[in-house]
């Protein structure tokens, strides 16, 4: 017993005004997690249960304007029915209840937790509880609206059968457009970026005009007119797909120029002076001292531009490209107009995300690395 005795109280210590320690940190955390899990689990369970069972088109579904003639009607009906299933309802209401308890307890007591970890547990529990409530309310709202219509149009995958290969081709075309545009844009942007930094107005002005034109007009305008400007204006007859790549390169060049300009300007003045003081010319100093450092700093913003460009390639759908040249979005539009099923757009969104999410992750990693200041050493390579 003597061993576990509390240490002697220091008589000179100031009075303890922290108040009693709050109980239940772990309970709040568990409640918060439970709220979110119950909501998600109930939805997933019902959906899987209905999808695997051998159900038919119910009267309820027919009332919701899903007809027997619709391709994939049973699948749609399953999703709608599962949403109305008692298990889903129970999960939603239970989640709201658990979340409310976690939120009230956590928000009320986190200040009085006696360690950082317990305080974090209480806060996390309260936040998760709130998220569980919001998700449950959102689902309740959704299923009280027109889940039948929505599901029929956006989650009916039956019409997409046989389009797998087309989507892969579309994804490849999207990447071709974006990659070609980005590579060309980087080359154009680097040259323009250096030109905008000239001390001579006559050198800066043309670069500025170019940049302001391409930044100041809609990309869709550039795409639509580009083909005819080349054809009628300069007698250059190119394939529409090639023109699209060219326009993306010209457009990205304008944005990349600003990125490079900012990157070069962010290099300390002393670097240029040091290079000039050993007799290098301005261009040598740029080439060996400034640009290599700037390039490291502009990698994250350029990758960001690339992500934006991938999405902007969807604009080529206005060009009426041939089927073999179709990008993801053109393909989705064609599929949708052929079947009146917008699930093509759902799949298109997923296809874009499959490409962009890893890239976004890479951008964040690159930014983190840059902020850590290791680039000068580790990034220098051999």
């Amino acid at each position, binding site marked *: 017993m003597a061993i576990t005795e509390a240490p002697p109280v220091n008589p000179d210590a100031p009075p303890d005004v922290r108040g009693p320690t709050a109980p239940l940190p772990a309970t709040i955390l568990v409640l918060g997690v439970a709220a979110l899990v119950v909501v998600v689990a109930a939805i997933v369970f019902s959906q899987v249960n209905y999808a695997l069972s051998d159900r038919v088109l119910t009267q309820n579904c027919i009332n919701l304007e899903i007809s027997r003639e619709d391709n994939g009607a049973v699948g749609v009906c399953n999703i709608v029915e599962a949403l109305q299933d008692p298990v889903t309802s129970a999960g939603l209401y239970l989640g709201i209840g658990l979340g409310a308890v976690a939120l009230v307890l956590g928000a009320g007591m986190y200040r009085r937790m006696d360690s950082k970890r317990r305080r974090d547990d209480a806060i996390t529990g309260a936040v998760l509880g709130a998220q569980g409530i919001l998700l449950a309310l959102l689902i309740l709202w959704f299923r009280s609206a027109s889940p039948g219509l929505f599901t029929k149009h956006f989650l009916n995958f039956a019409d997409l059968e046989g389009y797998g290969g087309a989507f892969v081709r579309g994804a490849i075309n999207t990447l071709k457009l974006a990659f070609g545009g980005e590579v060309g844009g980087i080359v154009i942007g680097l040259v323009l970026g250096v030109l905008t930094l000239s001390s001579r107005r006559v050198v800066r002005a043309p670069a500025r005009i170019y940049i302001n034109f391409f930044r100041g007009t809609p990309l869709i305008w550039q795409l639509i007119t580009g083909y005819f400007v080349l054809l009628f204006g300069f007698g250059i007859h190119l394939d529409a797909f090639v023109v699209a790549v060219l326009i993306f390169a010209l457009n990205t060049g304008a944005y990349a120029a600003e990125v490079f300009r900012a990157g070069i300007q962010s290099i*300390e003045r*002393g*670097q240029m*002076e*040091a*290079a*000039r*003081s*050993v*007799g*290098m*010319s301005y261009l*040598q100093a740029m080439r*060996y*001292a400034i640009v*290599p*450092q700037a390039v*490291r700093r502009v990698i994250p913003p350029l990758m960001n531009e690339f992500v934006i460009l991938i999405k902007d390639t969807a604009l080529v759908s206005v060009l009426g490209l041939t089927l073999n040249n179709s990008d993801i979005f053109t393909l989705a539009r064609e599929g949708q107009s052929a079947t009146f099923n917008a699930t093509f757009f759902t799949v298109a969104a997923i296809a874009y995300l499959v490409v962009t999410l890893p890239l976004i992750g890479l951008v964040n990693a690159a930014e983190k690395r840059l902020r850590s*200041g290791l680039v*000068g*050493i580790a*990034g*220098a390579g051999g």
Partner: protein
Amino acid sequence: MESSQAARPSAAPAARQPLIRLEGVHKWFGNLHVLKGVDLAMLQRDVVVVIGPSGGGKSTLLRCVSMLEEPTLGRVWFEDRDITDIRADLNEVRTHIGMVFQAYNLFPHMTALRNVTLALEKVLNLSSEEAHDRAMDQLARVGMGHKANAYPGQLSGGQQQRIAIARALAMKPKVMLFDEVTSALDPELVGEVLEVMIRLAGEGMTMMVVTHEMGFAREVGTRMLFLDDGQIVEEGEPKDMFYNPKSDRLRLFLDKVL
């Protein structure tokens, strides 16, 4: 090297010709009149130290010598060339004028060795072997041979500054300019850089040193300028100026810094 050392006491007539000469140099930054008519002649093997309050134009004066700042008015001569003339090949001139900065300004994406060899290869067009050998010699000269493959970010301020000195020395300049090269260093690192500079002065290098290190100015300088408000207020023997300042402004300045 040996012969030039031996020739030192009886300076040959050729050596009497100024290596660097400034004539009525003025510099404005917008409305700010930073240099107000500076005249100066530096002989070979001079170690000219420039002292004075901050904002007095010391660094600007030094930067005008290497034309990193262009004088608004006046002329700068390097040997017998007017380098303020628009037709002067400044890139060539700067290969003869070594410059070391307060902030080191090493290229952070290159090793110490590459920092030194870069200009040897790209400006002097030496082969990579020649450049390597010369760079290693200069790195050894500043006691940094063992860090040739380190990146600047891995080195202390004093080590970086010594590499910056080696980078300038490798060009075999006729004059070295030092712009407050110890001001950014932690106190315990100042000594190693000053040591290198003292050794250089002893070897007969022509130097112009803007500094707040009064001990260095007094002991190493062969001539001292006191620059205040854009003008050379007083110049002469460093010891003389320290012990018998003639102008009130110098006396006031010395009272504050000593």
